[in-house]
């Protein structure tokens, strides 16, 4: 299967709603990064995690390397949260380290 599988492919929320995105990895990843790609195409780094959970405002992300998944939770969704969210897993450290991206979750927040 795909090395990084993101679900759902698309998501529609009303303002104020909560929701979660998920990435499943086919192999053990050393770390994960989450990005938001805005309407201008710019990639904004949301989180970098080597393990555990991080929070930043209305966003929270968890990475479980052993269980091979990561989640991104959005609380109280706002219009500006619209965009495409990508997770990317780092396969290893050292000279062979590279990020493998999922295909993204397209989020639309409606008023």
């Amino acid at each position, binding site marked *: 299967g795909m090395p990084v599988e993101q679900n759902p492919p698309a998501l529609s929320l009303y303002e104020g709603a909560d929701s979660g995105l998920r990435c499943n990895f086919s192999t053990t990843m050393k770390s994960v990064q989450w990005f938001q790609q805005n309407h201008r195409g710019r990639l904004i780094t949301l989180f970098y995690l080597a393990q555990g959970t991080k929070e930043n405002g209305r966003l929270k992300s968890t990475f479980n390397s052993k269980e091979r998944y990561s989640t991104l939770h959005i609380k109280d969704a706002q219009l500006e949260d619209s965009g495409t969210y*990508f997770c990317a897993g780092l396969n290893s450290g050292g000279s062979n380290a590279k990020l493998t991206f999922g295909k993204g979750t397209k989020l639309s927040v409606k008023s």
Partner: protein
Amino acid sequence: DMKVTQMPRYLIKRMGENVLLECGQDMSHETMYWYRQDPGLGLQLIYISYDVDSNSEGDIPKGYRVSRKKREHFSLILDSAKTNQTSVYFCASSLNRVEQYFGPGTRLTVL
């Protein structure tokens, strides 16, 4: 303020022309990357550079070459561009080959 820059931001070329995409970073990062992003897909790795004149193929290097003569600059070169190289190209840099910082992207159209 850590920054990755890309020039130009938009470029239109004809098939068979040569293309030069430039990337710069002001963080003295050793490792730099070139990716391309096509509609509905995440980013795909073209080349990695571990330092000056130390470059390695990524997942889709065919049709591309790179040049890194100074640590802060990394160039992507398309000799005789093809229409299927129309894409958005992202550059990234990393201090420790773990967390990556991305530039704003270059939208290349090959007619």
